[in-house]
């Protein structure tokens, strides 16, 4: 019995469709997987990518920067490592450069003081020498819990700034733009940390009344916003 002609054509079309599907479906699946991966990037990762490019200008003079990581003695002490970096003379850019290098970690990852997935989101310097460093949430969530580890993390940041950016007198740490009570349940982040106690206040600050210690210690996000709004985008204190 002979099949009608149109049925042959129908079967042939079906066969062709199956062949095309067999070729196309794996490609489609691969594309979907790639798209899903892209969507999985957290908001913080995306923000990190946006804020990351703290341009290290190769024309900047190479400076021997001192970075503080764990000493390896497992006793909570830090030791300095000298790294040659082309650092900007601008204190805000310079701070970002040294902190990003600190976050990148030492060659020996056991000596890290900050979590590898933590990022510096923003850095500001007020005229009175108070710096505000805004870190990603990973700084608080990925750090090993404990007084020792949290103290080491903050010490490594403050001592690195002290050694490389003399304009920074105090440091206030924010997490994802917010003031938090502790870093990971122990160390107090509600107060500003002393970095360079002896640094003279910049020329602009000399015209205005310096922020008393008590006021600096009680910086709130609201207060910070007001102060930042009053300062231009460019760093307030020039070297």
């Amino acid at each position, binding site marked *: 019995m002979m099949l009608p002609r149109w049925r042959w054509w129908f079967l042939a079309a079906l066969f062709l469709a199956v062949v095309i599907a067999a070729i196309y479906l794996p490609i489609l699946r691969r594309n979907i997987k790639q798209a899903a991966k892209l969507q999985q990037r957290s908001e913080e990762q995306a923000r990190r990518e946006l804020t990351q490019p703290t341009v290290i200008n190769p024309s900047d003079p190479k400076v021997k920067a001192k970075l503080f990581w764990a000493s390896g003695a*497992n*006793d909570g002490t830090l030791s300095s490592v000298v790294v040659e970096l082309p650092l900007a003379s601008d204190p805000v850019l310079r701070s970002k450069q040294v902190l990003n290098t600190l976050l990148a970690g030492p060659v020996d990852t056991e000596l890290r003081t900050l979590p590898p997935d933590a990022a510096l989101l923003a850095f500001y310097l007020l005229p009175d020498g108070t710096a505000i460093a805004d870190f990603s949430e990973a700084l608080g969530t990925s750090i090993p819990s404990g007084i020792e580890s949290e103290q080491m993390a903050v010490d490594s940041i403050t001592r690195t700034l002290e050694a490389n950016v003399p304009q920074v007198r105090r440091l206030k740490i924010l997490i994802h733009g917010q003031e938090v009570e502790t870093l990971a*349940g*122990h160390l107090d982040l509600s107060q500003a940390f002393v970095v360079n106690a002896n640094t003279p206040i910049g020329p602009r600050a000399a015209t205005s009344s310096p922020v008393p210690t008590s006021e600096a210690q009680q910086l709130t996000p609201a207060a910070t916003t007001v102060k930042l709004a009053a300062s231009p985008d460019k760093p307030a204190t020039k070297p």
Partner: protein
Amino acid sequence: MLLDVGRFVQKTISRQPWLPLFVLAACLAAMRVAAAQVPQQQSSAPPAAQHPPTSPAVVPPPGAATPSPPAQTATTPPRAALNIVVLDPAHGGTDLGARGTGGIHESDIVLEFVAQVRTALESQGFQVVQTRQGNANPSFDDRSAMANAQRGAIFVTLHIASTGTPGTARVYVMNDMAPGADATGLIPWDRAQAPFVSLSRKLGDQVQGLLAQKFKGSPPMAQMASVRQLRTTAAPAIAVEISSVTVEDRTQLDHMAPGIADAIARGAAAFRPTYVVPANPGERP
């Protein structure tokens, strides 16, 4: 007659003329003794009213729980000596603290450690107040409020680290803080530790010295750190951190508990004579 007293007295005096002098001397002596006892009673009775043990010397933060006196101290009149230790097992509730690979949680272990520390302190004659008994998680301010409500107390917060050489213990005291007082002369809550920093350091060094003897590799002196819990505590206050939750076998930590308890109790006892408790709440040490 029984009522003829005048004749009886006249007769007695005529027979024994020294008797009135003896009675007069006895009366004078009795009056003198009575006069001496009255001021002593006045100085021992009123302090409960003058120095209520529950009145904190610091300005409480807005929203902080009003401190209530513990049952142990409610009936005890305040003494001008260190006799209370406020023990703080850190974390609790949903806050597990440091977590080890073997399922060890800091919040559970510190509770067990605190039980042993409590026994050791009580054997040294201290009253012990705990900031939490079970799996609760009071706020930092609520824990501080329990210490700030006491008079003549020290504060010890206990932690287990997730770093450090296993088998060592470290004592932390607060960094130097700028002292401050508001218009009323009270200590601001957020800097309550400021007047006590040097005393805390003395206490910390006492305890750390004993810990270093028991646990090799521990530092000889207390270290300074900006510990949130200590900042709002208006009493000599230390944080003891034990390493660590990363031990493979939980018994390694359990073996440390008696040594930790003994060091804290003996350190507190050694610190007791050096701590002159202010006469009135609100006075700086």
